[in-house]
């Protein structure tokens, strides 16, 4: 009898749990929208951002990108520890509340990297924090100088388009050199698209480049083209005034790793990047190269 009574009490407790959970989840759903930003909250944020539409906006958490539809400011969706954020110099962090998102952890990382925010604004459920910091920009980023390059494939010139944004080679429609935003490790990276063709080296020459101690190169296979490990690697060679100086091999796997190539001497030189592969299938190769300031860590 005692067992039966105990079981009855247990089941009565179960009733309360079932009904309690039902009530709590109902309330959770009905009140959920009050935790989300309203249009009014966004209006105030937009008003603030429009005061200077050149200031980037870092969204926290990374998925909260709806602000993109509202402002012309560059919206950056990167993890707080990402190295590209350091190149921004200043930015607004726009914080949207969300279950399971470690907002405080993200802000701690940002503060650890860039110091405490200089301004904090709360607009309803949205919070804006301004970070301002010194940034040591690279001495030269090659993709900013595409207009001055000469691109050749198999020795033949790949002519530039009228606006100098693309050098189109003659093999097929994807056979060109252009600055693009492409995906590496599911994140956006600005890089120089240079899809090689088998047997015809694709060379990109930048004249009158004031070189320093080294050239930093990040390179890899774009998006899903890096997933097929059976495809051929791509080789990138760096020549300075026609002298091979270094290079890298981008294997058939995802990623955008950094390679530092020491450069001899200083002065104005022609830097040539030559891209080759033994099999062009799905070799969606893209790279970013820059010359760091003297003494700057890569």
């Amino acid at each position, binding site marked *: 009898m005692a067992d039966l009574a105990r079981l009855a009490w247990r089941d009565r407790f*179960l009733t309360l749990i079932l009904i309690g959970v039902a009530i709590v989840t109902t309330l959770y759903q009905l009140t959920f929208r009050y935790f989300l930003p309203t249009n009014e909250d966004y209006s105030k944020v937009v008003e603030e951002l429009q005061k200077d539409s050149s200031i980037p906006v870092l969204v926290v*958490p990374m998925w909260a990108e*709806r602000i993109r*539809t509202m402002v012309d400011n560059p919206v950056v969706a990167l993890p707080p520890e990402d190295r590209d954020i350091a190149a921004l110099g200043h930015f607004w962090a726009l914080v949207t509340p969300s279950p399971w998102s470690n907002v405080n952890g993200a802000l701690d990382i940002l503060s650890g990297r860039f110091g405490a925010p200089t301004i904090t604004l709360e607009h309803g459920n949205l919070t804006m924090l301004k970070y301002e910091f010194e940034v040591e920009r690279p001495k030269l980023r090659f993709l900013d100088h595409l207009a001055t390059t000469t691109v050749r494939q198999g020795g033949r010139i790949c002519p530039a388009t009228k606006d100098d944004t693309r050098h189109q080679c003659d093999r097929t429609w994807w056979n060109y050199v252009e600055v693009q935003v492409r995906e590496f490790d599911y994140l*956006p990276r600005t890089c120089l698209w240079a899809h090689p063709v088998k047997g015809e080296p694709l060379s990109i020459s930048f004249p009158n480049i004031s070189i320093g101690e080294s050239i930093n190169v990040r390179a890899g296979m774009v998006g*899903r083209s890096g997933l097929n490990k059976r495809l051929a690697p791509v080789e990138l060679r760096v020549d300075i005034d026609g002298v091979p100086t270094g290079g890298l091999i981008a294997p058939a796997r995802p990623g955008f790793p950094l390679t530092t190539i020491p450069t001899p001497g200083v002065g104005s030189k022609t830097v040539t990047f030559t891209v080759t592969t033994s099999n062009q299938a799905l070799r969606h190769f893209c790279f970013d190269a820059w010359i760091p300031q003297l003494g700057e860590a890569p």
Partner: protein
Amino acid sequence: MTERPRPHSKLERVLAVALVFATFLLLIFTQFEVGIPRDEAVYFEAGSRYAAWVDDWMSSPVGAISRESVSQRFEYNREHPALPKILFGLSHRFFVEYLGWFNHILGFRLPALGFSALLMGFTFLLGARIAGPLVGLFAALGMMLIPRHFFHFHLACFDIPVTAAWVMTVYFYLRSLEENALKRWAVFSGLAFGLGISIKHNIYFLPPLLVLHWLVVYGRDAWAMGTFKDRVKAIPLAFPCMAILGPLLLFVSWPFLWYDTVDRFAWYVQFHAKHVHYSWEYFGQVLDTPPFPIAYPFIVTALTVPVALLLPMCIGLLQNIYWELRRAFPQTRNVRILLLFNALFSLCLIALPNVPIFGGMKHWLPSMPFLLILGGLVVIQAATSWTSCTLEDSRSSRLAIAIGIAIMVPSGLLTARYHPYGTSAYNELAGLTPGAASLGMQRQYWSSSVTHVLPWLNENAPKDTKVYFHEVMRASFRWYKSEGLIRADIRWANDPASSDIVVYQYHREFRDHEFQAWTMLKTIRPVTGLYLDEVPQIIVYTRPVN
């Protein structure tokens, strides 16, 4: 849980029929908002081609069954049996082309809605057979009030139909085991299984599961019988019925197997044995290749089934496992083992590290009716604790109904919240869509949510604009146009480079498509989109005018 060798009560029969018709009517009205997912577009096409076989029959019946005609008509989408697609196609022909009653999409979907209604009816009957109408009602309503289920209920696809066939088979099998059962239940179980394998392959696992159930529950007694003949006679008639009627029904309903039967069936088996793996986002990782996490189906279930429903389901499952381990309540062991095996099998199958995991929860749908029945038993258990020990006491019934309603309210709210974007649905434990996005879970799949931005496109796209509909099948685009959901002059673009407008479906593994749109359209600012509780699902970019 008691075995009741009796006919269903009048109330149970009325409720079953009412559930079937109410579900069918409800789905007719709610399906208008549901876009055409990738697979469904393929099945529409297959249905059209298969139904065109009728023309061959009209011109020459002998020619229609020739190798050439059959091979030509049924080659397309040969990786799945033909029956559901034949039904989709014939329904479209009859109700749309001949009678002109419905639009194209509903014309194809009607048979699938019928299967969804049958699933509701048979889930109810199975639950009612096991523990009375309240359990049946709980399980049936619960089946519908899970947002992802409700989405799949609308589609001319195979997952809900095969789940319906699965439940029907188990129901008829259970009835065939009852004392003094009529032989027709065994025959029906064979026919239901045949229907199932004529829809989708995952139901091939069911007969072995039922044999295992019989062996575990009755095997010892059967073995103890004196002669070999007695032992053979003890084997349920349902098993030979499934063994004979199943393949027979498959063969008859799939004309493609009429020629080169062995080769073509072997190809079908091979196709599914070596199915490709599609990318799937799971806790921030994009899962591309096996081995996949064993916890995957359990975690996804825990994050997508409304918590109020999930709780009794889990309690029911764990409690019955505990009872089975303790050998408690031996008089209900037959049903308990049957429920546990069916509740766990599909989940455990997908948990195997090399089994494809794409498709959200649709591949373990056959587990859900049984989990819900276990959940219904928990509700009854809780309700009866306050009064007498049986549901015959009306106070217990009223309390059970009250608890059931309390559970169905948040489940219904969640389902309504996500309709028609069911592939984006996450529960309260996940923190709804924003929480799931923060956890790094798959945001959506199948592209059907694109319907949200079609009115904007129709209103704002310049004349003859080329639009890149990322992940949308071209066939879906054509159906949207023929239904007037996309303006007639809007043109299809194969890639962002050749488009003026890009409609991107957020998939982590396809982020590069969005970034390509930035480059090609020279903008990073979307003009509109579908943002569920702030989380981007569909994002629209247009080429700036200047």
